C-alpha cells in the first residue's frame, strides 16, 4: 500500500463527503473470516476503494512497513502500545488534520475511549469493534437445574469463590472451564482475569498507574489480583482442566465449548464478549439466553479491548474514509451483522442482532468505570512478559513474587 497514488488511479465515485474525488485507501487490520465480510459490507457504501490486508502478526507487519518507509494509509490493530509509540515518533497524523473528525469522536465516543486515543493531548485514533471482558459465560440450564444463583456486577469476588465451592461440592460438574493455549498469544485469558480483578478490587487509578508504570507489577495491588486469580484457577476441584499443565495446554476455544456441550462438563467460563461468537458458530441453533448466557464479572467495573483505528497520512481519501467508518451509519451496518459492539453513542441499540449482543453493548456503554485491556495497553515486551508470567505462575504459584519482578523488569 502507499499514500500518494490516490489522485492518479482514482475511481472517481463521489463519496458521502461528496466534495472529494475518492481514490484508494490501504487498510492494515487483523480481521478475517466473517469479520472481514462484515467489514467489507460496512465500507461498501463508501465511495472509494478499500485495499484491506489482514494479518494476525499485525505488530510486526506494521513495524516492518513503517520502518521500511511504506506504511498503510490506515491501521486498525488491537494493541495501543504500538499506536502510542508511533504517535510519539510523529509517524501518525492527528485526527484534527481531517476536518470534523476529531469533533465527531469527542462528541459521540465515551470519555474513557477518547482518552485512550490521545497521546500528549493530541487525538490520533479512535476505537471501534469494542469487546467487554467483564463477561462470565455460563450454562443457564445447568444453573436452573441445581438452582445456583447467577452472580452479577453487584456481587463480590468472594461470592464468586463461594459459588465455585458450592458448585464443586454439588458434585455435578466443576465450576470453571479454563484454557490458556493460543500459540503466540498463550496466556491471554489469564491476563484478562487478572486485569478484571485488579480493576474491581483496586480501582481505575491503580489500574492506570500500572499502565503508565507509576505502579509496578510487583505492587501489592497487582500481587493481590494474581493471588485471587490463583484462588480460582488453582482452587481445589475448581477447574475442569485440573492442574497447571492442563490449563496451559488447553486451547481457550476448547475451554469455552465444554460449558455448552450436552451434557456440559463445566458450569462457567470467563472469556471476553467475543466468546459468544465461538459459542454460536460451534453450536448452531443454540439459544442466546437459554442455551448460553453471560453475566457481568462480580465487581461491576468493565475492562475490554477494541480495535484502534489511526492514519499515517491526511490526504482527502484517507480522511473521508476515517470519517465514514467512525460514523454511526457505517458502524450500524456491522452491528446488524453481529460480532461488533460499537461505542458510538448514535448507534441504535435496536440494531443489535440479539438480546445478548445488545446487553453486551449496554454493559460497555453504561459501565461507570471502563478500562482498556491492560496487556494491549502496555504492549511490547512488557505484554509478552505479562503473558509468559501467567503461564509460569500457574505452574509455579509459589514463585509469584519473582515472576512479578521479572515482568516489571521487562518494562521499557
Amino acid at each position: 500500500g502507499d499514500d500518494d497514488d490516490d489522485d492518479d488511479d482514482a475511481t472517481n465515485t463521489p463519496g458521502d463527503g461528496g466534495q472529494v474525488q475518492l481514490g484508494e485507501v490501504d487498510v492494515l487490520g487483523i480481521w478475517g473470516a466473517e469479520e472481514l465480510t462484515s467489514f467489507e459490507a460496512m465500507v461498501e457504501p463508501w465511495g472509494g476503494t478499500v485495499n484491506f490486508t489482514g494479518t494476525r502478526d499485525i505488530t510486526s507487519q506494521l513495524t516492518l512497513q513503517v520502518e521500511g518507509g511504506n506504511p498503510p494509509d490506515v491501521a486498525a490493530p488491537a494493541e495501543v502500545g504500538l499506536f502510542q509509540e508511533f504517535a510519539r515518533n510523529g509517524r501518525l497524523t492527528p485526527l484534527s488534520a481531517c476536518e470534523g473528525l476529531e469533533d465527531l469522536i469527542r462528541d459521540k465516543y465515551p470519555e474513557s475511549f477518547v482518552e485512550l486515543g490521545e497521546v500528549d493531548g493530541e487525538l490520533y485514533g479512535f476505537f471501534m469493534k469494542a469487546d467487554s471482558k467483564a463477561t462470565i459465560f455460563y450454562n443457564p440450564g445447568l444453573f436452573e437445574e441445581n438452582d445456583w444463583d447467577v452472580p452479577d456486577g453487584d456481587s463480590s469476588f468472594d461470592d464468586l469463590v463461594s459459588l465455585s465451592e458450592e458448585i464443586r461440592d454439588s458434585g455435578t460438574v466443576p465450576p470453571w472451564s479454563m484454557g490458556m493455549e493460543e500459540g503466540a498469544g498463550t496466556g491471554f485469558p489469564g491476563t484478562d482475569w487478572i486485569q478484571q480483578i485488579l480493576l474491581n478490587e483496586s480501582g481505575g487509578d491503580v489500574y492506570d498507574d500500572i499502565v503508565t508504570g507509576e505502579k509496578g507489577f510487583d505492587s501489592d495491588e497487582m500481587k493481590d489480583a494474581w493471588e485471587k486469580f490463583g484462588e480460582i484457577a488453582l482452587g481445589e476441584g475448581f477447574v475442569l482442566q485440573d492442574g497447571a499443565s492442563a490449563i496451559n495446554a488447553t486451547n481457550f476455544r476448547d475451554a469455552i465449548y465444554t460449558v455448552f456441550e450436552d451434557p456440559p462438563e463445566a458450569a462457567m467460563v470467563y472469556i471476553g464478549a467475543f466468546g459468544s461468537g465461538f459459542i454460536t458458530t460451534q453450536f448452531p441453533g443454540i439459544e442466546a439466553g437459554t442455551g448460553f448466557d453471560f453475566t457481568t464479572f462480580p465487581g461491576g467495573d468493565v475492562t475490554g479491548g477494541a480495535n484502534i483505528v489511526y492514519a499515517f497520512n491526511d490526504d482527502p481519501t484517507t480522511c473521508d474514509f476515517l470519517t465514514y467508518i467512525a460514523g454511526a451509519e457505517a458502524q450500524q451496518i456491522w452491528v446488524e451483522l453481529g460480532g461488533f459492539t460499537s461505542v458510538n453513542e448514535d448507534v441504535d441499540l435496536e440494531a443489535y442482532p440479539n438480546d445478548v449482543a445488545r446487553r453486551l453493548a449496554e454493559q460497555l456503554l453504561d459501565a461507570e468505570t471502563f478500562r482498556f485491556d491492560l496487556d494491549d495497553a502496555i504492549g511490547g515486551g512488557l505484554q509478552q512478559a505479562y503473558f509468559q508470567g501467567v503461564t509460569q505462575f500457574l505452574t509455579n504459584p509459589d514463585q509469584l513474587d519473582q515472576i512479578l519482578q521479572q515482568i516489571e523488569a521487562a518494562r521499557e
Partner: protein
Amino acid sequence: MERSEAVQVPAPATAEVSVAQGLRGLLPRLPLHLVLLGFIVIWSIPTLALLISSFREPQAIAADGWWNAIWPPWEFTWDNYDAVLNQQGMGRAFVNSLLITIPATILVLLFASMAAYAFSWMEFPLRNSLFLIMVALLVVPLQMTLIPVLRLYTQLEVDVEVPIVGGRVFGTSSYLGIWLAHAGYGLPFAIFLLRNFFGSLPRELMESARLDGASDTRVFFRIILPLSVPALAALAIFQFLWVWNDLLVALILLGDPNMAPMTLRITNLVSSFGSAYQLLTAAAFVSMAVPLIIFFALQRYFVQGILAGAVKG
C-alpha cells in the same frame, strides 16, 4: 559389416520369469517392504488427520478425535472446501500464486546453475571463499532482510501500471519485485546444491564438448544442464513450494490485494480471534495440490545411470 551387428527384431521380448522365481525374488525383500510401509504410515498419520478433519464439521472436530470419523456413520462435508474455494478472489489468488511462483522458480534455477557452473568448472581467485560466503547467507533470517529491502523498493519504485498482469513495473506491489526477492532468497541453497551436482560430472565430457567447439554457454546448456536434471528437478520442487507457501514476503511486498497469492487469502479465513481451523485444514490441501502435482511431474527425471556409457574408466 551389418552381419556382425546384432539382429534387429520388431517385438520387444518378455522375460519369462516363473512364479517360483518371482516369489524367490520377493521373499528376502519382505522386510524391506515392511520397513518402508512402516515409515509411510507413520509419516501419513498427521496428513491423514488433516485430510479427515478437512471434511468434518467444526463442532465435530472440537468434539472428538479425527480417527472417530473413519468409522461409520460418516458425516463428512464439503463445506470447508466450499468456504475456501468460493472465498471471493480465490480464483485470482490462485493465478497470482502461479504468476509469482513460476518465474521466481525459473530465475533461481537459471541464476543458481550459472553460478554453480562457474564455481564447479572455472578457476578464479577467491573461488572457495566466495562460495562459502554465498552459502553461508543461507542462515540469514528473512525477517532480518525485509526492512532494508522494503526501503530500497520504496525508493526505487517505478509506479507505472503493467498491462494485463497488473501491478507496478517495480517496487512494492510489482511482480518483478517479488520475483527478484524470492530469487535472491532462494539462491544460496540452490547454488550450494547445484555446485555439488555439477562438480560430480566427468571432466572429459566438458573437454570433448570444448574440442567440438562448444563455448561456455553451449557446454552449460547442452551438457551440464541435461546431465543434471535430477538435481535441477529436486531444486525446482523445493524452490517452487517454498515460494508457493511464502506468506511473509508477499505480505510485505504485495500491498495491492489484486496481486495477493493464495497464502494471503487463506489467512483471511482466520478471524482476529483465530477461529476456523477446519477451514485451514481444507485450505492446506487446496494449496498443497499444485506443489504435489509438480512433485509427481518431476519424478520421472529421477532416473538411474544418467551417465551410462559416457566414459570408459
